[in-house]
């Protein structure tokens, strides 16, 4: 009986591989193929016409594409950095609390339960120029007498989106960094105090290195689903006004579903996938480096 038996690890991984192949890989191969065709949802026969890299060239030459690309990178950089800083600040604040810390931690997790699409609607409501909370508050306080067009003006709309995005995701950073702060040993800090270090110095040279891996975990987790920002933007402005908050994702969605130009949308989709992969790989590398620094490498 010399029947071939696959190794156990392979059998165990098989379900995961099959389902990911079926739901992610096959559609992606299809979309890769269709990005070389002028495929339109309304005209199925166009799927079989090969036009080479025309769609990619069209995207490369498109001003709309590049401005959406730049804006996406800008949004991610600004939002992730601010979230990290605010998360660190929030974690430090909560860490100092001695009484009722559990309750504060629970409150901190509140935004994590909100669906991004809900966050979108919520902030669309809050920043509404007519009945929104922000304008109502500003007007009642007498700070301004006109309605500030938060979601109509291009730059203000971008700002509003960043605020919404930060509200929904700062908690992830804060909770992870807080867990990191718990893991910081007491002794070196006490020793540093005795040796006359300022609070800033002991934070910079003792606390921060310990917390760094946790920051990278948070960045890695966030980088896995940064595209969730699509939901928020799609609801709040849908790339408007006049494309001034257009991100890659909203551009792709509109080109694919509204204009039905699937081939072109898939070509842009591929570019966005590479952007996401670069972000993810970068943070996972940082994560591994930080882990091995702490001697936790697996």
């Amino acid at each position, binding site marked *: 009986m010399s029947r071939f038996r696959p190794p156990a*690890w392979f059998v165990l991984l098989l379900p995961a591989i099959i389902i990911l192949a079926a739901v992610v890989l096959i559609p992606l191969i299809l979309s890769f193929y269709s990005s070389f065709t002028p495929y339109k949802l309304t005209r199925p026969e166009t799927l079989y016409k090969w036009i080479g890299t025309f769609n990619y060239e069209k995207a490369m030459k498109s001003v709309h594409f590049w401005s959406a690309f730049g804006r996406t990178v800008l949004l991610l950089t600004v939002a992730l950095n601010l979230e990290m800083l605010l998360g660190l600040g929030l974690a430090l*604040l909560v860490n100092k609390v001695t009484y009722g810390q559990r309750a*504060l931690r629970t409150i901190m997790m509140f935004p994590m339960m909100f669906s991004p699409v809900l966050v979108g609607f919520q902030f669309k409501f809050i920043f509404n120029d007519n009945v929104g*909370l922000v304008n*109502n508050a500003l007007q*009642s306080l007498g700070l301004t007498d006109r309605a500030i067009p938060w979601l109509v003006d291009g730059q203000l709309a971008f700002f509003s989106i960043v605020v919404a995005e930060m509200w929904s995701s700062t908690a992830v950073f804060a909770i*992870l960094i807080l867990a*990191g702060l718990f893991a910081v040993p007491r002794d070196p800090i006490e020793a540093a105090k005795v040796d006359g270090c300022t609070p800033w110095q002991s934070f910079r040279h003792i606390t921060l290195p310990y917390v760094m891996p946790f920051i990278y975990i948070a960045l890695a987790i966030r980088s896995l689903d940064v595209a969730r920002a699509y939901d928020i933007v799609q609801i709040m402005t849908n790339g408007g006004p006049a494309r001034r908050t257009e991100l890659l994702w909203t551009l792709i969605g509109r080109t694919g*579903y509204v204009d039905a130009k699937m081939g072109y949308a898939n070509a842009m989709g591929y570019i966005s996938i590479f952007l996401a992969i670069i972000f993810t790989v970068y943070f996972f590398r940082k994560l591994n480096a930080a882990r091995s620094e702490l001697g936790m490498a697996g």
Partner: protein
Amino acid sequence: MNENLQHRIRARLLKLAHFVALFIAMAIICVPGLWVVLNSFRPTVDIMAKPPVWIPRGLNLDNYRAMFGAVGEGGVPVLQYFTNSLIISVTSTFIAILVGMAGGYAFARYRFKGKAAIFIGLMLTRAVPGVSLSLPLFIVMAKTGLIDTHMGLILVYVALNVPFTIWLIDGFFRQVPIDLAEAAEIDGCTRWQAFWKVEFPVARAGVASAGIFAFLTSWNEYALASQLTRSTFSKTMPVGLRDFTSEFTINWGGMCALAVLMIIPALILTFIVQKHLIAGLTFGGVKG
């Protein structure tokens, strides 16, 4: 003496500043959510009032009543959406946990060629933006007839959750000493029994936290659901929120009511297993 007093004043001021900063931070976190809850109980006239009505008055359940009411009179098939969401989220979480446990166990316990590459490959599938994936998925599902069914969405969510589940569970199984399972095997357990009787109970917290994340992801997902569902038979609650929008106006009160209904299960679940959630994020990540 003077220096002493100065020092004490400084300490007091610092404490006050800390308290104020903390209060402001918590307020910013809470207000947007509470505002939604408050508005779900307010009549539309008050929501739209100019100048604004600050002190809540005439709070009632009209928005909820309208939502559960007949379709066409402001009613939305909420119960159907709720059931859809529940069926899809629970089933996909369950399957994702099973698949993730198998995968995580394989990564934690076995050595094989190309392990790191396979691991990164699995993770990268999660990084594919929903909207880029939704275009080809839409075509595939339309061809296979899975579009607008529970089955289709469940499959998609399982695939969405498996990478992260594997990552978390792998980290937890690594913490279980391998000697435990080996001892059980020496005592006459099969590998299968050793897993369920010895290793699984120890890593249960990790599995629980992976489960919560999977559930929250499926419960809240929108980008894919909005394209892959068409009718009330498969629409989930995040997609249902759109029912309150028409071309130029939005029924804010009704939408807030549905939002509250959507948050409650997530809230309850998260509070019950809060401890696991934090443990899951940190241990799974650091030691993984």
